């Protein structure tokens, strides 16, 4: 299987996993999701540094863009 079709398959699997594996987590069950290390952007400066350094050395650019998860409070 070529790398391209492998990665396409991976993408499809991810989407299916996404759709089928959801349980609704109630507001009082978000203890683990509220942890710093479960945030998409735990360290904004480290993330900005990585993006800047890789971007200056490689042809591709851009990274994960989502907010989400966390405490869900307020």
């Amino acid at each position: 299987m070529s790398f391209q079709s492998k990665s396409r398959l991976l993408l499809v699997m991810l989407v299916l996993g996404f759709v089928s594996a959801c349980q609704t987590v109630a507001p009082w069950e978000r203890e683990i999701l509220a942890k710093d290390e479960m945030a998409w952007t735990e360290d904004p400066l480290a993330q900005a540094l990585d993006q800047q350094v890789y971007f200056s050395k490689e042809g591709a650019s851009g990274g994960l863009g989502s907010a989400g998860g966390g405490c869900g409070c307020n």
Partner: protein
Amino acid sequence: MDRSAKREHHGAPQDLGRALVALTTAAMALPAFSVNQPTETSVALRSSVYQEDPIKNGDETILFGSADRYKIKINQFYLERPVGSDWALNLNYSNEAMSGASPWGASVDSVGDQQVIMSGASIDDSRNKLEGSLTKYSDNAAWSLSVGGSREHDYRSNYAGIRWINEFFQKNTTLTLDASYARDTLNPTDAVLYGRVVKASKQSRSLALSVSQILSRKQIVQMGYGLTKRAGFLSDPYKLRDVRPDNRIEHRLTAGYLHYVEAAASRVRAEYRYYWDSYDLEAHTVEFSILTPFLDRWEIEPGIRRYQQSSASFFTLGDLYDRPLSLPQSSDFRLSAFGALSTKLAINYKRDALKVGLQYERYRSKPSWGLSGQDSHVALLGYELLSLGIQLKF
């Protein structure tokens, strides 16, 4: 490369402050990361230094110029502050100082091996970047406006962006939309002397959509798509022969996954990005790390990153002086086929509102790891990076 060769060619044009970031500045503001107003003020400082590996592979590889490459120091500052009950303000400043040489041009010798022409060691060049964001929070949604700019002696960039975040399904699903615009102006040094473009500009417009979905009490996944259109002067004015199409359309598909393992109080993180653009460049990036506690207030996070790209359609191993300047051409290593592997290690100390982290990264690239079988650049990079960061919340 021995010092005598360097002395012999000291008369070669000095690359006075090559705009390392001329081709790399992207609108990368740090807008809101959450739908919920932060309850505390956060301040973060980070200081990093990285050193590129010198070019190896023997005397014939470098036609002239220095073999030592860039040494870069980056200092960053970040502030996030809640304002009233519905707003927050972000401020982000960074300073990047670089010194060293970079590939100026390339040629291919009689046996097909590449040789590079390096610039002389340049004087220090520095770049300052300042950004601010204002975010408004409401039930289940947040709006963020960011503006920023960066300045170097030969390059300036101004950008603005908006972000919209919305939560659905009992806050289990989060949708994030981003739109941004950047305008960059370039005034290469010694333009008239070396026949470079005197002044040029380029614009970038980006749109991105991503969805974050909670899978369970300890798992969360994210998927996204981003599109960027760049137009204007996209070539590198500091290279001997570099002509790029004045339009570039970039796509990226991203996926991320976080999993908390309760038994080990550890967190696993995985990310994947598929990138493709109108230069025919394609790239796959995979990152993986595990954060685990040790002793009382310490954490350790080993990580690995694998990157692979194909070459741009107009990449040439050696500069082709008989190719008309109306045709795209470039020997820039960043447009060649190569792969890279990074190994990283971070160690953190956490106590109440304070977190101190030290990171080390070793980055290596090789042409044989690339996506296509094409011969690749000898000026491919390796570097070592060390970074120290402090975060405080109050």
